């Protein structure tokens, strides 16, 4: 009995330690579930770790913060780092805005600490280290593919100095990167509870990669410790964004449940977490569709933010008594209503125009549905093998009715195999307009070794990035810059709401050589050698001798006769004569015939003569 009491005490102590009140470190796990206007279900996991002494001492005990990551950050002087690994494309037009935007493939951008020397080298080392950490091909990021944007990617952390040296920023994308289980497993290992307990136990690979859109994100930044912001803590936000298509998951059903989305139920919260909450966005309940959530939420919150009211059903897992498995499910009632899609204030598409493999154009179409002007910054990142023509840059509004002049342009021309083309524009979009940014490019030839094995698949061009400050929060779910957790976005009205959009990535078909050509060339070369080399070799190495033209001219019958004769003579003389004698005999018999045919001689002479006259003429 005493032992039991001691054990419970110990467990209580350990779990108390785990919550790290001693050290001031915190871990929060949150899940937002939202039914998107298109009927898809958006699940956003966010695991936030706040490390009180992070960034100060390099060898400080990590507590909840993943040590592998902290070592990397310290070693390469990283202040702020944002990494995303994404499969699928976020469809802004139908889905609104995500909490964290990410382009298809991998994207990495980092701010290095003030005073870092040799940023490029540190950047390479960082990407290589992260490549190992997340089993992704981030090692293909090198300074030759990286950019140093001037206006976009402002630092998100809390810093002493208001403006930072832009040379400390590096940005790169790998649009071709395919995200899979091998990335998810190391991602989960960074969490304090791994995937053993808590919300992360819902992240089973089979179900996650079934989603239409899945994005892993790692976001590290220094964050204010409190409102006064005298001290900073290091904030690590690990996010998993998933968009499920219910039509694919289950036939003709709008209902969702944990089992349908994640395949498993929730066993409980992570013991190390300070908070463990699930938010279900119920704003549309009762208007476009009617559904009930089971079990009943712990509480219902009304969030009034930027003029838009959102209703969240909150499940506090810490407070929920979970006996078996916890699962939330929604059950719809009434007929399905097909809503007219109302796209968000700002969205964009990007595509290639033109055909053939000579030249083309890239069009970025930006829609502003707001009734007022909207300032945006557009960042185009075009690889070196698509040399763009800066003079063809055209920014037109509403199908060419108006030509826009950007506030500022920042253009760094690319260099072959050395540097991509970077173009940044600060533009004011007129109200209710479609702005089109058009630029022309050439398709360039690559060296034959630069083609990937599947050369005819095409080459990817990374997404353009649009950054803006939205005036209101329609379709907006982002977390305010001063908050760390999703709960901080509740009732967080601000003047403006920062938004980042990533457009589509592009696939271009470069002029591709026929790679079976070398084989053909070898065949051709061999044939040529066989046909030309043999005679040439003959002509150059063999001595030319006058042929016995008489023998030639005698015709078939005569030569046959001669053969027969020699054969007969051979057979008759063979028993008596030895070989050398026989030869002598033969040569003797030949000599008189050569001399004694005058007509033959004449013929040769005649032929020579004709040739001579022809040459003279």
């Amino acid at each position, binding site marked *: 009995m005493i032992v039991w009491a001691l054990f419970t005490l110990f467990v209580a102590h350990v779990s108390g330690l785990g919550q790290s009140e001693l050290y001031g470190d915190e871990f929060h796990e949150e899940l937002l579930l939202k039914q998107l206007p298109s009927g898809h279900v958006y699940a956003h996991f966010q695991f936030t770790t706040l490390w009180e002494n992070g960034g100060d001492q390099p060898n400080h005990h990590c507590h909840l913060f993943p040590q592998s990551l902290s070592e990397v950050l310290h070693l390469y002087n990283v202040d702020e780092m944002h990494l995303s690994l994404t499969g699928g494309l976020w469809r802004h037009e139908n889905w609104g805005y995500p909490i964290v935007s990410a382009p298809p493939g991998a994207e990495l951008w980092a701010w290095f600490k003030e005073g870092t020397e040799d940023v490029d080298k540190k950047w390479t080392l960082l990407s290589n280290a992260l490549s190992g950490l997340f089993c992704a091909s981030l090692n293909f990021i090198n300074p030759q593919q990286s950019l140093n944007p001037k206006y976009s990617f402002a630092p998100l952390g809390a810093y002493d100095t208001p403006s930072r040296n832009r040379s400390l920023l590096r940005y790169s994308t790998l649009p071709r990167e395919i995200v899979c289980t091998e990335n998810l497993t190391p991602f989960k290992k960074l969490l304090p509870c791994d995937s053993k307990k808590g919300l992360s136990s819902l992240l089973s690979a089979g179900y996650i990669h079934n989603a239409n859109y899945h994005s892993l994100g790692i976001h590290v930044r220094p964050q204010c410790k409190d409102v006064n912001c005298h001290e900073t803590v290091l904030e690590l936000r690990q996010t998993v964004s998933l968009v499920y298509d219910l039509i694919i998951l289950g036939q003709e059903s709008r209902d969702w449940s944990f089992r349908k989305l994640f395949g498993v139920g929730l066993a409980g919260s992570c013991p190390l977490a300070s908070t463990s909450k699930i938010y279900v966005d119920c704003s549309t309940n009762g208007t476009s569709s009617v559904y009930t959530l089971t079990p009943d939420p712990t509480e219902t919150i009304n969030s009034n933010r930027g003029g838009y009211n959102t209703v969240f059903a909150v499940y506090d897992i810490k407070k929920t008594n979970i006996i078996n498995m916890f699962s939330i499910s929604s059950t719809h009632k009434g007929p399905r209503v097909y809503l007219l899609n109302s796209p968000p204030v700002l969205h964009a598409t990007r595509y290639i*125009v033109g055909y053939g493999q000579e030249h083309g*154009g890239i069009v970025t179409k930006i829609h502003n549905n707001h009734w007022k002007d909207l300032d945006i910054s557009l960042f185009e990142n075009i690889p070196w093998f698509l040399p763009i023509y800066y003079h063809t840059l055209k920014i037109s509004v509403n199908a060419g009715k108006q030509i826009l002049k950007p506030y500022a342009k920042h253009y760094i021309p690319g260099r072959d195999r050395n540097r991509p083309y970077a173009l940044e524009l600060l533009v004011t979009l007129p109200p209710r307009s479609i702005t089109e940014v058009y630029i022309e490019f050439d398709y360039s030839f690559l060296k034959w070794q630069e083609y990937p094995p599947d050369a005819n698949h*095409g080459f990817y061009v990374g997404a353009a990035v649009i950054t803006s400050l939205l005036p209101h929060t329609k379709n907006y779910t982002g977390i305010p810059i001063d908050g760390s957790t999703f709960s901080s976005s509740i009732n967080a009205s601000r003047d403006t709401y920062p938004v980042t959009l990533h457009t589509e990535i592009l696939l271009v078909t470069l002029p591709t050589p026929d790679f079976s050509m070398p084989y053909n060339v070898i065949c051709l070369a061999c044939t040529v050698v066989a046909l030309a080399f043999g*005679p040439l070799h003959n002509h150059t190495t063999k001595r030319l001798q006058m042929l016995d033209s008489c023998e030639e001219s005698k015709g078939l019958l005569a030569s046959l006769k001669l053969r027969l004769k020699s054969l007969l003579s051979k057979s008759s003389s063979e028993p008596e004569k030895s070989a050398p004698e026989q030869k002598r005999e033969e040569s003797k018999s030949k000599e008189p015939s050569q001399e004694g045919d005058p007509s033959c001689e004449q013929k040769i002479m005649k032929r020579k003569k004709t040739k001579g006259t022809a040459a003279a003429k």
Partner: protein
Amino acid sequence: MPVLLDPPEGCRRPTYLMVKHHHKLEMLMYLGGLLWFLALPSDHIHSASYFSENSLLPGLVKGGFVEDSFAKTLLVSLQDEISANPTKMPYPWLLAQFRQIGLDAYTHNFTLNYPLANDMTFEGQNVYGILRAPRGSSTEAIVLSVPFRGSKSVHPSTAAGVALILAIAKFCRRQKYWAKDLIFLITEHEQLGAQAWLEAYHRTSSGRYGVLNSGDLTSRGGAIQAAVNLELFSDRISHVDVKIEGLNGQLPNLDLVNLVHMLCNKEGVHHTFHNRANLGDREYNRGDPIKMWTYSLRTMAEMVCAQASGVPNGNHGLFHRFGIEAVTLTGYRKVDRGSPATFYQVGRVLEGILRSLNNLLERFHQSYFFYLLSATDRYISIGVYIPAVGLMASTLLLRALAVWRSLQIPTFQTDKEKLMRAQEMSNCFASVGITVLVAHALGVVLLRVPVWSALYLNAADTSLSVVIGLMSFTAISTFLPIFKSMHSDTLLLLYVIGLIELATILLAVSLHNFPLAVVCSIVLVPFALLVGGRRLRFLRIIGWFLVQPLLLVAGIILVYTSVHFPDDAILPKAMHAFKEALTFSYVDYAVYGNWMLSVGATFLFPMWFVLWIVVLKGNISTSKDSCEAKKGQ
């Protein structure tokens, strides 16, 4: 080796032989080419088709399409819509269907400013739905299109096709394996809608500026990898005909064609090429090789005719220009007894095609782009068929060589004479140059004649004025040479230049559109050879006059009409067809960028004109063979 070792001096033996026997050689080469072409579909030459692209994996998966009853319901509903409004496409119905299935649906407006009239515009609207690939990021797309036809259309209704692709869209929407966006496109106004949509997708214009205003698309789906155009005339299909010939004779990749045939085979859908099924293997295979050959030859000839015209025989033909491999599947209504192919089977075929295309990792690049088909599963590759045109066109070059040599080697000796001769020749060159230039200038003018005559000639209708304009222009140019006299050497030189250019054109065309080059070679080469010569000059003139491009077209149309409509009155019908053909050739040129008219007007006509001068003025012979003369000395 003699080529390498002998300096080009005097009468080299091969050249000498070639020139000496050029008449025989020409005959031999022409007949050889012709026979080679005719022998192509024989069992010894054409070969069985096969798949080059491994990732297509055709028919490997079990089909899952079960929405055939949904398609039938849709068909009934769509036919109600069409009968309620026979001319217009039921946009709201189509959009609603797409949205209900769960696709992003959009419309696309386009305007055609008719090129042969002022202020004559036609408007149209396409509808398309995009199924966003759950496993992709909209970098690649596959198009499934149907041309919509109202009940007033001259062509059979494709309502069944529309119903089927909607059902397929519904089926595909629930599958999670799509890696490429699927675009379901329903076009209006036959090929015009498809062309406008493609131009808008790529934001280019293929035809003349300002003719087709193709507008803009709201949404796209990345680079289109392949397209399938579906024309189903009924829900009970007797056979599916696979159409491949595209604009300007372009063909889709052979792998795609094979894929369609193979999947039809797998699903038990009767499939044909130019409405000709393969000769039943059991009946004839071991039987009669001659019968096999004639049957295959006829199939190949159908393909040659279709391809040579340069006009696409389905909406698929417009995709090829944009590097998109596309075929048309035309399903004909089953009228006789027997079990038809239903929505279920055709749907499975389409599902299989889409899934195979979805498997593609790279663009189609493996198999042939240049080929002839002599059956659904037999092909003739470019390496095998090109000698036919090569042989026929080379006869012209040989003749040119012979004439050139007869010009070059004079029979006089002294320096003074040589100098005078050189002077003469340089005069010849200037005169020939001007003549050729004038001929080509006439060709360029000819290209604009249809517009001018349509706009300024007030005949009963546009096509009539186009015909009158073209006829009068060519008639005038036919009589032009009368006013100019020419030296016989100049004529010979003109003949040489004309022959060389004609041969070059034929060879160049053969690389783009082999059937066109073959047809032109078969017709033009013998007459072009007959142009030079003394005897029976009148016949030679008549002969070359008959192959005047415009008359040639008239002749072909006359033959075509008499073969296909033997019961009707041929002449009026042929006249009507001729008018239409000329008008359409210009409209195709202005709207789709068809280069049939451009080639005819700017190359074939000038060449005809040059040789026409030669045959009209010339009293030339190529038989004076100087090498022979030299031998005699």
